[in-house]
């Protein structure tokens, strides 16, 4: 088994309003940033899984996303898997 670091990015599904992102977008021009558009606020979840290979790690983390880490009704997710460097 190998340790894999998973980086899960959870964001609003397209078409679902993102009130936090919209509010930040309205606030930025007050600081002089008038060229900003499409601000979205999501969340990042990091975890480490032991798995036979990267594909198995990904499959398991995606299953976690479907069941708990994201709410598929309003959220989408993106999983990035990388092999954790063994402590030397």
């Amino acid at each position: 088994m190998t340790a894999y670091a998973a980086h899960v990015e959870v964001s609003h599904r397209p078409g679902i309003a993102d009130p936090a992102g919209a509010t930040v977008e309205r606030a930025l021009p007050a600081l002089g940033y008038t060229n900003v558009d499409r601000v979205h606020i999501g969340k990042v979840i990091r975890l480490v899984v032991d798995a036979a290979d990267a594909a198995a790690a990904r499959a398991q983390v995606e299953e976690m996303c479907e069941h708990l880490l994201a709410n598929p009704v309003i959220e989408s997710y993106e999983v990035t898997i990388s092999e954790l460097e063994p402590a030397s």
Partner: protein
Amino acid sequence: MSPLVGVVQFPGTNCELDVQWAIESLGGHAELCWHGDSALGAVDAVVLPGGFAHGDYLRTGALARFSPVMAAVTEFAAGGGPVVGICNGFQVLTEARLLPGALQKNAGLKFLCETVELRVETTTTVLTGECTAGQRLRVPINHFEGNYVCDPDTLAQLRAEERVVVRYVDNPNGSLDDIAGVCNAGRNVVGLMPHPERASDALLGSTDGVVMLRSLLAAAGARVAP
């Protein structure tokens, strides 16, 4: 014999005693059900009250769904038992997939604590059986995540099957189609953001929630009667 209402208590729930008081002031019995118990006991109805179950960590209601009691609530609901989720309880019911859609942050990003006017849209649910269609009720809301969303197909289905139970007369939080509460296909599971128990005594400023709680007791009582 008056009906017994189980009031579920998760770590972080904070409206359970209000609900219990309101139910008992209307002649019902109410007992608290700890979230860690896997059985509900001989209850005739279940209320998931407001609060911050499991600290609202990850998402509101997301972790509560995995509490042992929720398997019993799901089974009770599947058998036609009346189940009502108020505020955080509504959020738990959507996360548990007992009700469609989801509740996200209010459109104005403000925590809302005010009394709103509701319109009863259907009287064939366990929470509105004693209401009249179109009845206006003044009931408090108290939430940050009460903005109801669902996909267009689900909305069309909710409308076609008359499963929007109550709508806001003046939408305070950006909810899709002014939805304040919905029910399942069996009409025995209802979730709503407003708090009927906080409008159950003249001292609280409104008694408009009483008709909803009476409806629930009537639905629960119908199960007691042989």
